[in-house]
């Protein structure tokens, strides 16, 4: 039994590694225990067979299917909906502060924007930002985590010092500072996404590093080294596939965390800037009149919660499918 970690980063093998998070959410959920996964994944095995087994488990997970359906619906609505809806999100309709009606299913705001058009646009911003964050953070985290875990040494200590920083400073404060730096740039959602990824990759990196630390001691890696395989081949062909389960699960949770965080940044006015809208900035606009014009607050808030909830359900389903030994949340 190891002593409790000398720094907050080493939580010991027994304790689940959390994604400590953000304004909005308590714990981001358990990042799957890489060692358990690695232990199960074993050597070789039919890749296709494993994939099909995982897919089978996922499609028998009721909540995950509901989550997937909801997420796809929101994606479609927010990407395709604006093409067919009679108002653009920036249109001023001339009707102020009207409650929901057939003409304006979600009502209008104090300036006369159609809220339905704005919510669709805001959902689109939130989803595309979050997906970009997840992709960048996962790729970056996997590469850096793999190098640190495989080679150890200087790369490893540099990584751990940097992740210490992310653990001792509240994430949201770090992001506020960084977002403040890019909030005036044009095409702001892209930069906000990069800012989020610039911090969130550390969780992926810690996860991959953990997997690699245990994987590199295993016989099949030793065998690869013995037959003279290059490091690149060992990492890309043998170790990454064995760590892919936790990486995918954690990437999904990163989507949810990114949506939450982006909303907090935009709510505080340091995220998505006008004229662009995100669900967080819509809620910020709606908050002043929430007592009199509750729809301005409620519709974007419900969309945001449902979107994040659906991603979390997908993540849970993926965890049960890819990593059956790890069932913390259900």
């Amino acid at each position: 039994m190891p002593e409790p970690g000398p720094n907050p980063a080493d939580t010991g093998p027994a304790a689940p590694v959390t994604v400590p998070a953000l304004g909005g959410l308590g714990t981001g959920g358990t990042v799957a225990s890489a060692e358990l996964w690695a232990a199960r994944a074993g050597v070789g095995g039919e890749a296709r067979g494993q994939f099909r087994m995982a897919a089978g488990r996922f499609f028998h997970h009721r909540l995950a299917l509901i989550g997937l359906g909801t997420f796809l619906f929101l994606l479609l609505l927010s990407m395709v909906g604006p093409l067919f809806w009679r108002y653009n999100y920036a249109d001023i309709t001339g009707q102020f502060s009207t409650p929901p009606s057939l003409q304006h299913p979600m009502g209008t705001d104090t300036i006369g924007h159609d809220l339905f058009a704005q919510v669709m646009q805001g959902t689109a911003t939130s989803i595309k930002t979050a997906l970009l964050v997840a992709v960048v953070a996962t790729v970056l985290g996997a590469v850096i985590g793999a190098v640190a875990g495989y080679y150890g040494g200087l790369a490893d200590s540099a990584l751990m010092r940097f992740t210490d920083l992310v653990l001792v400073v509240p994430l949201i404060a770090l992001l506020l500072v960084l977002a403040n730096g890019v909030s005036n740039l044009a095409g702001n959602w892209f930069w906000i996404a990069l800012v989020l990824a610039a911090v969130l990759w550390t969780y992926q990196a810690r996860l991959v590093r953990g997997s690699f630390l245990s994987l590199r001691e295993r016989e099949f890696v030793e065998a690869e080294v013995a037959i003279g395989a290059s490091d690149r081949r060992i990492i890309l062909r043998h170790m990454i596939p064995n760590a892919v389960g936790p990486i995918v699960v954690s990437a999904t949770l990163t989507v949810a965390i990114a949506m939450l965080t982006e909303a907090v940044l935009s709510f505080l006015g340091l995220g998505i800037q006008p004229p662009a809208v995100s669900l967080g900035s819509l809620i910020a606009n709606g908050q002043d009149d929430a007592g009199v014009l509750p729809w301005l607050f409620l519709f974007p808030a419900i969309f945001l919660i449902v979107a994040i909830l659906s991603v979390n359900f997908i993540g849970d389903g993926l965890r049960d499918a890819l990593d059956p030994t790890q069932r913390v949340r259900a």
Partner: protein
Amino acid sequence: MWVYLLRRLAAGIGVLFVASFLLFVLVSLSGNPLAQLQANPHISPATIAAARDQLHLDEPLLERYWTWLTDLLHGDFGTSTTGQPVGPQIWPRFWVTLKMVIPATILAIILGVVVGVVSAVRQYSAIDHISTGLAYLFYATPVFIIALVLKDFLAVDVNQAVGHTVLYTIGENTPGIAGGWNLFVNSVAHTVLPVLTLVLITYAGWSRYQRAAMLDVLNADYIRLARAKGLSPRRVFYIHALRNALIPVTTVIAIDFATILGGAIVTEVVFGWEGMGRFLYEGLIGPVSPDVNVVLGWMMIAATAVVIFNVIADLLYAMLDPRIRYA
């Protein structure tokens, strides 16, 4: 034990030094404090040069870091861009923030542990399902939505139902109220909703970990043995099961303390508290942005608080789990 404590403290201080450097570089490079002045055509180049001089922007970054760090070690946080020293502004606000954060942490721990243990003991009961559902909901709800729902809907309804204001939504107390008991009651009435906000965003995650840990323990062989020996259910529960089930959660709570401090920024902004988080926020959106010394002051106090909290958690961890080696 003492050696262990000192070692943990030393490690924490090391982390703080590394963090201070990275944070200084990050905050200093994150924006141009003079941008607002330079954009204004009515401000003369001489004024801008004076401001640049006052903020030491001409000196190399490392030199600025060294000046800032040595001042900090003497307890001086430097001056904000308004020319006022940061220290005398931030410490009173630190206590304001603590009035929100400490009750919230204690209540969230109690709620998280109780809910988690009850849902583990009564697994798959109605209580378990409800707490699972709520945990999912609070996981997915950003802090500002919880704060706004409490402020704009719950508080209004409760105050209307009672007939007078029992839940205040702005500030940490009513200005000008007489001291003593009245002030205390008034402060508590102002504190309820912000604390509730912070409790709701944190307890849910903790209750899930507590539930998982408790289930693990309850299914362990030594619990079956304890029952088979004929120990009273009470003894099995409190001495054998609960004590061991608290161990993993300690770490999670310690890590999440930073989340509460982060959540306090948003909560203070929504509820209009003149706390430390609002100070940070104003240092970022204010006319001069970023107000480097203000932002760094917040960061260093928060980081220190997180490190101290983690050391306490490590000590608790060692107390709860005798297998931990102190050496």
